[in-house]
Structures are given as C-alpha cells and as structure tokens.
C-alpha cells in the first residue's frame, strides 16, 4: 500500500484462452504484474485461476492471447523456460522429491558445482542452511524430504523460490495448509521479495489475507477476466459480487427448514490420533454442515460414520439403531449415502458408462437370480439423469466424458437412487462452474424439503453459510463450536476453526 507502482509492468498476460478438449477452461485470462507489488488473483473454484498460474508456469501453452515480459512477447516451451524467464511458482500441493534430501529438493537442476561439473554437496547444504536462516527456520538440509509435515514442505518450496531470485513469484493458495504463524512468516518473505523489486502473484480464497498483503486485485469468473483494481478501491462485498456475478440468494436457494425426527445420532465418536469426542445429531429435513480447515478431520468423521474407516470409540446410531463399526455395507443398509470429496477417484468408475455408474449402488435391486437386468438398469439411470437435469451425449458413453458438474450429478444420482434417509456429501460443488453449482444447491434444497437429512462438508464458507441450518466447526479433530444459521458468519466460523484465533481476536 505504501509504495504505489508507477513503473512499467513487468509481466502482462492478455486475453489468454485455453481449452482442454471440448471444455473451455479459460476464455479471457488477463493479468498485469508490476515490480515491487503484490497482486491478488481471486475467483471461485473453476474460475480459471489455476489455468492462468499454469500458463505462467509454462505447464500449459495458451491457445490464444499474448504474454509479454518487460514488453517483449514470450512463449514458454515448458516449465524450464518459464523459470529461466524469472518466474517461480509455489503450488498449492508441495511438489517435492521424497527420496532426495531437503537441500537437493531446493537446488534440483541448479546444484552448486565444484570442479569437473561435480555437485558440491557441502556448498549445497551450506546454501540451503543460508536460505532457511533467511526464512527464520531451522531444518537439516541433509535429511530426506520424506516425512516432512505439509508446512515444512511448503517451507522447502519457499526456499526453492527464494533461491531462484525470481522476478515474479506466483503462489497458488500457499496458505491453505498453514497455521497463522506460518502464514505470517510467508507474508514476511513476500514483503522482502517485493522490497527487492519482485512482483508477487498471490492466489487465495482468504480475503483477509489479500487485504493484509496485496496492493492490487484481479478478479476472474467463469474463465474470464472481470476487473483489476487497487486494493483501496474494493471491499469484501464488491469482490464477492464480482466473483459470483449474481446475487447470493440465487446461488444458495434455501427454503426455511422444518426439522423432523432424529435420523443420525453420533455419540462420543473417536478414531485414535485423528479425532475424538465428536457428538451431534442430524434430523430429517435439515442440513448440518461440518466446517473447519483442510485437515481438521471433517472428511475423516464422515468416513468413520459411513464405516470406511473403523472408529475406535463412541457409537453411531441410525434411527436409534447402532451401526457396526467399519462396515459401509451396514451403513448403506441403514440408509446412509456418501458422496465423496474426490469424485474422480472415489465417486465414479471413470471408464465405465454413465448408466452403469448410476446403477452401481442399486444392482441388488435391479437383478433377479443374481443377474442384472440391463433394461431396468438403463431406465433407472435415465430417470435420475432427467431428474437431475444432467447434460450428456449418450448413456453408454464413459462417465469421464462428462463435465465436472455433470459428473457430480452422476454421483448424486447414483446415491439418490437408493432413496437414502441420510446423505453425507463431502465438498458438494468443488471444481464445478457457478451455474451447475446453483443447480446442485437447488437439488439439495428440494431433497431436504422432502425430508432428507443432509450432512455436508464444505471448505467454501459461502456455501456453508448459504445452505446449512446448523454448522459444526471442527478444529484439530475436536468439535469446537456449534452455530445456528442465525448466529453464523464467516468471522465466527473462522474464529472457531483456526487454532490460536481466539487469543488473537
């Protein structure tokens, strides 16, 4: 904020486009980076931020548009070319080599050399220690990267970026897995780099971090550039409006609920070393959300209820009856359905046809004498595809040909076909475009009005606030707070979810 950049931009990306097969991931990617400035790139999941990052990284080659560095048009043949042009990337997921030492991870491909082009290990370890010193951490450069915590892995990534003396540092949601102390340290590094004249592109969902550390914001929606503005000219509300592009009411349709009898009751549920003392109830006709940071144990609780992982203490009851621990079959028989977080890995058989996927959970019902009847399988799939307004070519196409939103509908259809009384849904709209997102929300709302009980896990606070009747906040494996729809807001949830936040607040 203090130093307003008036110089020439260092990097300009203009009207970049990128398609993957029939899916258009980016229709207008534009961003301008000035030296000495932190620039936030904002947008919902699927808005095209990651595609922009990967174009800058040299991973994707844009189909159209222009990329200029220092006024010169450039085209990257690969990640090495991007790096050579002075761009350094910190990805959301650390990209380390577990078998190699920490120092080798930092200097891979650029190891200090002694005579005869041999790697000078002593010098390499010294240089790594030096970098860790600048970051204010102590880490043995000679230990393997295997076994480092996510935060420490991120430190190694930052040290790597630092060692490149990059002109442009791109950070793709680097703070998702970090605690507040570590985030502060990261911002300190950002400030240092800016003072040295580097440009920083900061991708984040946490608006408070953006206001704390950036001078300029660019907002994207549905693969397109919306606007760029100095941080002083935007507010949280105006950013959200630009990101969502429509009123939140339509994105989160919510009929006032009328909870009925208790469907699921969880008592003192625990799984050693992961979570413990989790107790709550879900009634028919209500949505209960599990909120919390990534890694707080939300998905693990859901997995234990469904019986994928056995729980080591406590009981799960469905309509008063105790469920066997560690048995998804028992959970399904009791009327629980689970739409998992990762639909590609856990929700669907990607190479199998759409109708086979939808029928997969209902084969018992569709078969006679152990043989599945194809016509019944097909008609079941068609029924649900229509009810969920799925868009698809042919029923027997592999489910992998569907867009992300329609894949999610296929997973939903597969479970709804069982007529469950409790639906557990983990990240219902991750990686889905805004239009389909609103549709998924509408479907959920309709089902709940008809008496379904829903346990929803979501990392997107607007979704939690928009859809849930009650919000349970989990922090480090403990139930930290229960908030009613009336008392919940982003600040209250984040305060309960973030370790050490009450003290700071």
């Amino acid at each position, binding site marked *: 904020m203090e130093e307003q950049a008036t110089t020439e931009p260092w990097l300009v990306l203009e009207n970049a486009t990128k398609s993957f097969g029939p899916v258009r991931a980016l229709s207008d990617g534009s961003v301008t980076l000035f030296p000495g400035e932190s620039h936030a790139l904002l947008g919902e999941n699927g808005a095209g931020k990651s595609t922009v990052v990967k174009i800058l990284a040299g991973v994707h080659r844009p189909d159209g548009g222009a990329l200029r560095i220092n006024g010169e048009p450039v085209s990257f043949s690969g990640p*090495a070319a991007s790096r050579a042009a002075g761009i350094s990337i910190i990805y959301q997921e650390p990209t*380390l*080599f*577990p078998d190699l030492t920490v120092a080798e991870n930092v200097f891979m*491909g650029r190891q200090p050399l002694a005579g005869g082009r041999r790697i000078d290990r002593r010098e390499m370890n010294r240089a790594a220690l030096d970098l860790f010193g600048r970051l204010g951490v102590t880490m043995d450069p000679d230990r393997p990267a*295997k076994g480092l915590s996510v935060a420490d892995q991120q430190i190694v990534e930052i040290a790597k970026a630092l060692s490149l003396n990059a002109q442009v540092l791109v950070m793709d949601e680097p703070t998702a897995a970090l605690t507040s102390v570590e985030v502060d340290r990261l911002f300190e590094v950002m400030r240092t780099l800016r003072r040295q004249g580097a440009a920083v592109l900061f991708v984040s969902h946490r608006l408070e971090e953006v206001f704390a550390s950036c001078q300029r914001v660019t907002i994207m929606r549905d693969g397109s550039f919306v606007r760029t503005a100095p941080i002083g000219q935007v507010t949280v509300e105006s950013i959200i409006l630009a990101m969502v592009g429509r009123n939140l009411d339509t994105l989160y349709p919510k009929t006032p609920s009328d909870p009925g009898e208790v469907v699921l009751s969880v008592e003192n549920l625990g799984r050693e070393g992961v979570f413990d003392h989790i107790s709550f109830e879900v009634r028919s006709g209500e949505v209960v959300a599990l909120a919390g940071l990534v890694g707080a144990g939300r998905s693990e609780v859901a997995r234990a209820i469904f019986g994928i992982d056995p729980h080591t203490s406590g009981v799960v009851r469905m309509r008063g009856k105790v469920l066997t621990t560690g048995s998804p079959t028992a959970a399904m028989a009791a009327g629980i359905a689970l739409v998992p977080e990762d639909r590609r890995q856990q929700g669907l058989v990607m190479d199998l046809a759409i109708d086979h996927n939808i029928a997969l959970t209902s084969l018992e019902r569709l078969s006679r004498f152990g043989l599945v009847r194809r016509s019944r399988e097909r008609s079941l799939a068609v029924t649900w595809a229509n009810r969920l307004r799925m868009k698809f070519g042919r029923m027997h196409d592999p489910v992998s040909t569907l867009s992300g939103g329609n894949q999610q509908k296929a997973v939903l259809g597969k479970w709804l076909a069982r007529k469950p009384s409790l639906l557990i849904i983990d990240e219902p709209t991750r990686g889905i475009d805004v239009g389909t997102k609103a549709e998924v929300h509408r479907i959920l709302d309709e089902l709940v009005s008809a008496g379904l009980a829903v346990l929803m896990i979501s990392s997107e606070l607007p979704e939690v606030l928009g859809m849930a009747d009650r919000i349970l906040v989990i922090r480090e494996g403990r139930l930290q707070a229960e908030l009613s729809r009336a008392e919940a807001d982003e600040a209250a949830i984040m305060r309960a979810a973030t370790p050490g936040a009450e003290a700071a607040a």
Partner: protein
Amino acid sequence: MNLATEGPVRPVRRLDSLLRARELGIGLAVVVVFGATTLNNPAFASGTSIAQLLTGASLIALIGVGETLVIITRNVDLSVGSVVGLSAYVVGREFVNHPGMPVLVGFLLGTAVGAVVGALNGLVTTIARVPSLVVTLAALYIVRGADALIVNGKRIDPVNIPAAYTVIGYKTVLGIPWLAVVVAVVVGVTGYALRSFRSARELYAIGSNPDAAALAGIPTGRRVFTAFLISGSLAGLAGALFLAEFATVDSTGGSGYELLVISAVVVGGVAIFGGSGTVLGAALGAVLLNTINQALVASKVSSFWNQAVAGALLLIAIAFDRWLSLRIARRLRSPERANSDT
C-alpha cells in the same frame, strides 16, 4: 511453534549410516554364506572357487548397473537377456566372417547392438508414453526372435573366437578375474557419477516424483531415454563378454537373465518403484545371489533349491525394504509431531 525441528540432525545422521548399511548388510550376508559353506567344504575358499564366484556374478552385475539406472526412474528393462543373446551371436558371427577382426571392435560392436535396442526401448517409452514394462516385454520377444532368425539353428564354436578375445574370461590379476575387474570399474564409475552429477540426480528425482520432476523443468523424456540407452549398451557389452567367457553361443544365450538381473537389483536395495538405490548395492546383490547358488551346489543341495532360495531371498529383501522404509518414515516424522504439539 518452531516450523522445523532442531533435534533431527543426529538421528538423521545415524539414519544415513543405516541406509549405507544396506550395502554393508548385503556384504555381510555374502561373508556369512561364504564362511558357512567353507566350514562345510574347505574347497569353497580356494582361489579358483573364489574366481569362479566373481566371474559368475560379473555379467549379472554389469547388466544390473544399467537396470538400476532404469529402475531408479520408475521404469524397468526386461529386454536385457535377449540383448545379451543377440549381441553375443552377432559379435561371434563377425569373428567367423572376419577372422582378423581386432578384439576391441568385438566389444564395441556388442555394445552398439545393445545401444540400438536400448535406444528403441527409450524412444517408444518416452515418445509414445507406453509403460516400459510392456515396451521392453515386447522387445524381449522381438529381439529373441530376431536372434533366432539370424542364428538359424547354428552355433558359434570356440575355434572361431580369437584367443586374445577370450582371455578376459579366464585370466586373473592378483587372483581376481579380469572380467570382474572390468565390471568393478563400471560399477565404480557409474556409482560415482550417480552421486555427483546433476543429470544423474535428476534420474532419482524422476523416479521419486515424476510430476514434480516435470514441474521442476527436468527434461524427463531425455533422461529416461538415456537410462534405457545405457541399460541397452551395458547389456550389449555383457553379450560381448558372454562370448568372451564361454567362447560359444547359440540362440538361447542369455535367456532368463532379465529376471536374474532384476532379482539382483532388488535384493541389492534398489526400490522397485524408483527414486532410490545404488549400483554398488545391485552389484553386491548379484554377488550374493551367485554365492548362494554356488554354496548350494558345493553343499550338494539339489538344484531345485537354488531357485527356491533365490525366490525366498527376494521376498526377504522386499520385506526388509518395507520394514526399513516404515521405520525411517516413523523416525523422520516423530520429532515433528512432538514439535507441532507444543
């Protein structure tokens, strides 16, 4: 709230030596097998017997060097046995057709034959992105088939091979066969290169995390190609040495070597899923397997047990690997956990 730990420096040092002890462990196993057999049958420790032990392990160890490079990159080369057969026969045929051919040309020719197959394996694997298991399995059959066509039922006889060529197979220096000396030099040079050069470290990076390697700007295709090229070339050289050792070859020369080589490499501590391992370990693995084989023969155990023991050893090696990596993972994680709890 320290991010990184201050404690791990010492445990990791000890751990490092533990890892190095992997080679030491195999060396010890060789000594134990050797000692036990010698107690039973003193002739086992005679000079000729020891020379035989080393010669017998040499070809497998040499091919194992190339195989190690390939496996480190999370690939595998199954064609090496067929390459040995083809290369040995081609070199032999040239000695038959051109009796005056210089000895060195024989070795170079064998290496070149292997290099061609290795290059093809590498190209198909990296450009067409076909899993190397499939590519080199196809190469195993194709090369063996081509070999059978060229051999056409004949065989190379010792009379056609110049004495200056076969000398490497039986002459010794200070009691060590020349063949073993040559292989030891290759192992030493490659082992040193794998520790010391950027491109070699990149092989480990590729096997350790292929996606991250691409993001780090490593030319993964070129590196994997090079690994296959070297593996093919060394298998070709091994074919030329096969001819020098036995002075005779027909269409079955080297068959089954690929499994012996992979066994030796895995017993020697090279992780089958890439990312770690040394050529010294692989070479010691070859020596251990051969020593056990010979020990069973010397102890007059039925040859059936040979293979059973080799298989059991493989299982033990893999189980030990798993145990070791779990142990290391726990060791590396524990200080962190203690720290993050504060």
